[in-house]
């Protein structure tokens, strides 16, 4: 059910019932994107609370051009990325991917750890890789939008995305029902 203008107006006036109605309807989706981006559940809860304060603070600027959920989602992504920068997570974007690449060897111990879900697998990614994967493959942002949001190039966003996918492929092997390839060699592209 869409949030109507009367509820929004009452929420702007500070009416608790109206504020709670908006939170009840949209918290599952808003908090989910925060959790996917942040990873750690405790940190995600703190960030999500800050996101909701920002959503309600920005309520007078909501014009109804987009659906309320879409509008709140944009605020959630922006505020979460800001929080991750404050936590110096995204600052390690490039190095995070490089550290991640060290574990490309298929014989490392990680192959024995298989994630039960994409959410669980995401917690195993480096912060930068997780951010790019969530924004692109889950939330549908383009590489240009991701690059603008994270201060990287779109080429860098693609590179990190593909590395993140490759790692998730290993972590979720059992979910996609693909046989393992012991001794396989993945080298340079075939020319």
């Amino acid at each position: 059910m869409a949030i109507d203008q009367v509820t929004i107006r009452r929420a702007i006036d500070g009416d608790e019932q109206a504020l709670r109605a908006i939170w009840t309807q949209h918290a599952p989706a808003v908090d989910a994107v925060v959790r996917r981006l942040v990873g750690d559940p405790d940190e995600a809860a703190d960030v999500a609370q800050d996101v909701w304060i920002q959503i309600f603070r920005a309520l007078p600027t909501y014009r109804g051009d987009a659906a309320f959920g879409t509008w709140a989602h944009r605020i959630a992504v922006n505020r979460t990325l800001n929080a991750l920068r404050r936590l110096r997570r995204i600052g390690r974007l490039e190095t995070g991917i490089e550290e991640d690449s060290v574990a490309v060897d298929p014989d490392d111990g990680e192959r024995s750890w298989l994630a039960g879900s994409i959410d669980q697998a995401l917690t195993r990614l480096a912060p930068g890789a997780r951010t790019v994967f969530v924004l692109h493959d889950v939330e549908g942002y383009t590489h240009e939008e991701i690059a603008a949001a994270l201060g990287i190039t779109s080429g860098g966003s693609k590179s990190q995305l593909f590395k993140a996918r490759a790692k998730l492929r290993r972590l979720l092997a059992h979910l996609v029902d693909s046989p393992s390839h012991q001794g396989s060699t993945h080298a340079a592209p075939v020319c």
Partner: protein
Amino acid sequence: MLHLSAERLAALAEAEPTALEAAHLEACHRCATERAAHHQLLVRAGAEAHRISAPLTRWETLAPALADEGLLVSGGRRRSARVSRLSRVWLRRAAAVVVLVGGGVAAGRLSAGVAPLPGLGAPAAASAAGRFASQDEALEALGRAERDYRAAAAFLAAQSRPADGLEPDGAALEAYQTRLAALDEVASVTRAALYDAPHDPVINQYYLASLGAREATLRQLGTSLPAGQQLNRF
């Protein structure tokens, strides 16, 4: 046999392979399977955006934080109800003022020998029902009608005079000021009511009409001032 790199296979989850890559995928079951697996993961990832789960936040902790920020007003519900009740009282009084103003406009038209404004009576439900194909169409017609109504009301207000036989100076100015005060009250009350009912067509109509009439009256007041005086504010 060399295969496509893990990252290239990840890219091919949604990208089109080159001719050479396509030929390899045709011949290599392993790479073709990997590409299909990546595509499956991509589909699952997209579905994650719609997966509903329990929220991280709890209202019991969020509400006090909102109150600290001044975003949640304790007792706000009661205050809103009180404001709404006051607004309804003033709205009834303002409606009475508008009826008097509107009645004066109509009386002016009649005295000038002009036919009454068409469509003043409530439209028959049956005729209104078949006239519009959608709500959007009806709202568009209402918008046009409001613009015409405002323009016509402003024109008529500009044509009318506060009363016959009044001296053009002191008494006329006082009459204009009385009218402006009434119109300001109407505009203020209807504007407040629009916070609760922003799409109500009747409240919108009264609000816009009061603004149009106020503007016309200010212009008329400006032309009625004695020589050497000008209207600075009202």
